[in-house]
């Protein structure tokens, strides 16, 4: 049974599940490296998922949906930036408020636009896989090829984009002027200020980037994976992403890999649900597993994880 469990499909499923987590986690990494706590990733993902579907349904163009998802995430993050950078509000409070706002707003607009709560109609065409290589045949070579095809070539565009973003963001963080200044902002903003780096502008950019990535994560959920939007469909993924960011030690590639771990847990959870038909274990038990993993991982790890020194502290000139 265990062998039939570990199919290439499981790995592919893990990578798919990891994608929204990773995008949001990398957003969180960039945001927190600038010194701004972002617990509003959940809300950013949710508005992205919602507006992606709304615009796709309205225009029939799923790519416009993706753009709308990103814009929605950026707009929500702009509120967070304004509250925490300009108004110097408590960043956790601002983030919590935005999560509630996102939940309320999507629920409310659902009623306004579609006249009912719950879920939207399905979009006509989800975004399909990038590659469509032929598989089949028999023999060892054909089996290997089908494995490779499933694990490497079976994904939709945003899945690949997430991998590219992880690598590019990692490179940018350690090789570019932007990255150097970003890392300084979250550690010692005054030091950055004294050499002429604009602290507030830098933090704005970082928060907005996290909004864009959060929105894109939402687009991946609705436009590539599920095909409909339903109330609160992110169901805590934004918080898992936050955990992945910490577990990945505030680095983009680390965030991606940590998301992969949680994605794998999610994939196994789904697999176990289908395996245990007729069994007595309630389905909620399996749904719980990824979160349990988060708690275990963070409890075992948090003590050693050292975040940016100035995180959560608004910057004030003398």
């Amino acid at each position, binding site marked *: 049974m265990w062998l039939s469990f570990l199919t290439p499909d499981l790995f592919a499923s893990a990578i798919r599940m990891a994608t929204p987590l990773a995008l949001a986690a990398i957003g969180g990494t960039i945001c927190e490296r600038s010194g701004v706590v972002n617990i509003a990733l959940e809300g950013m993902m949710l508005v992205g998922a919602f507006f992606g579907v709304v615009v796709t349904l309205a225009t029939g163009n799923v790519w416009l949906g993706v753009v709308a998802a990103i814009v929605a995430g950026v707009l929500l993050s702009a509120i967070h930036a304004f509250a925490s950078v300009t108004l110097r509000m408590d960043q956790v409070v601002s983030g919590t408020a935005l999560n509630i706002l996102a939940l309320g707003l999507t629920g409310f607009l659902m009623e306004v636009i579609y006249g009912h709560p719950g879920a939207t109609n399905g979009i006509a065409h989800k975004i399909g896989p990038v590659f469509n290589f032929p598989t089949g045949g028999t023999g060892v070579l054909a089996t290997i090829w089908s494995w490779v095809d499933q694990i490497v070539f079976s994904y939709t565009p945003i899945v690949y984009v997430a991998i590219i973003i992880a690598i590019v963001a990692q490179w940018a963080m350690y*090789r*570019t*002027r*932007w990255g*150097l*200044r970003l*890392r*300084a902002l979250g*550690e*010692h903003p*005054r*030091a*950055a*200020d*004294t*050499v*002429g*780096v604009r602290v507030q502008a830098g933090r704005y950019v970082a928060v907005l980037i996290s909004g864009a990535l959060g929105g894109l994560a939402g687009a991946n959920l609705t436009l590539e994976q599920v095909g409909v939007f339903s109330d609160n469909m992110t169901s805590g993924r934004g918080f898992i992403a936050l955990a992945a960011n910490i577990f990945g030690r505030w680095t983009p590639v680390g965030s991606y890999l940590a998301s992969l771990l949680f994605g794998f847990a999610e994939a196994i959870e789904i697999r176990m649900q289908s395996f245990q038909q007729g069994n007595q274990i309630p389905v909620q038990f399996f749904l719980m597993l990824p979160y349990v993993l988060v708690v275990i991982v963070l409890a075992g790890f948090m003590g050693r994880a050292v975040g940016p*020194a100035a995180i959560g502290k608004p910057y004030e000139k*003398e």
Partner: protein
Amino acid sequence: MPVLELREITKVFPGVRANDRVSLVLERGEIVALLGENGAGKSTLMNVVYGLLAPDGGEILVDGKPVRIRTPREAIDLGIGMVHQHFMLVQTLTVTENIIMGHEPSRFGVIDFATARAKVRELSLRYGLKVDPGARVADLSVGMQQRVEILKALYQGARILILDEPTAVLSPQEVGELFGVVRSLVTEGLSVVLITHKLDEVMGAADRVVVMRDGRVVGETTPAKTDQVGLARMMVGRDVVLTVERTPARPGETVLEVRDLVVLDERRLEALKGVGLTVHAGEIVGIAGVDGNGQTQLVEAIVGLKRPQSGSISLRDKDITHAAPRATIHAGVSHVPEDRQRRGLVLEFDLAENLILGDQRDAPYARAGIMRTRVIDEAARKRIGDYDVRTPSIRVLAGNLSGGNQQKLVLAREMGRDPDLLVAAQPTRGLDVGAIEFVHRRILTERDGGKAVLLVSMELEEIMSLSDRILVMYEGRIAAEFAAGEADAERIGFFMTGGSKKDHAPAPQAGTAVAGGGGL
């Protein structure tokens, strides 16, 4: 034409006139020492020049042209560099990254690290500021970090270098090296403003001395025209005794007893390798040593901030080896930490709140868990008066005090608690000569009142003038012990730098290096 001229600079904070029509001239290739009591307004004046504070009046001229400096960036572009009293380095970044930040050599936003490292290396060679460009700043000693700060200013093209108390945290050797660097800078045509409280440094390095008091310039002189006593008088406005009188100690029973103490540092290496010592009532035990030889860990273990690996600590026969800080305070231990900003104060709290930290749950400051503001404020006002903390009110935030006054605040709290044992690490760091005299007297008074005092200091002069017994620490062990009067700077320096009892003659370089840059 002067490279920098300040005309009638005024800066007012709520309740304080920190700078009151201050004028100052700096010529090319000149070192001007800016001298003044704690809170006189020296840092404020330099922060105005560096664009960190906006002046309320006055004019700044660079190369004879009036300029407006609104941000550090504008100061940097005018060729002004500053090394701050509290360093401005990002601990997690490398030396190179810290130096180039703000002026990164790059193409299309991609940093050219090869060029950056080469530039850093070239500068460090040219001015004799040896650093490893790839090292993380957090792993560097304070002296090294300071070199990075200076390199940063030079890299940004500074022609005018402001050094705000650069020697307060340096070991004597490092002080010597720093002044070597400063001299090579001025021969290259740079101009330097040096803020320091150490009069011997002023006498040795400055071309001209400008003295401030209460926000105003009260005098100007040159080292040739005066001496340390004269400088002190100009600063404080009265005669200052530079070395205190000390009567012999009359030690009583044992108060602190430390046995075979082993403590690990952050990297889990043994920072203390089995240290034993005792401090008696009515006795001052001084710990001499180059920074980083285990003194920090010793102090933190005694006051309960660090858990010892093995060994024991007892206070009047009560075991406090594993006591938490709160319990050690209750047992009668006071602690003046070496880093006032990190361990000593909550910078966002006001003075009254800071003055009762550690006692906030106890009578008379609290009753049934409620803090009694009236009692607290009254006590705060009294202590601030006793310790001469210069502030307009007790509602000022600790972070807004001048560096020296922050230090006095910590001393006021810890010494005001009436402890059995006072553990004081670098108690006079950043204090002016008047305040040092006061604190030294105070420590001696505590001793004469039967208190046990453990004094840790990098200032050999301070150790020698106060201690009844001197222990020298080297690499986590007590390397030597002397009775008061038995040791001279040379012999202590010999053991501080790793000499052992078997070698008899003090190594000449080691001895002079230490004695050369002594404190007051």
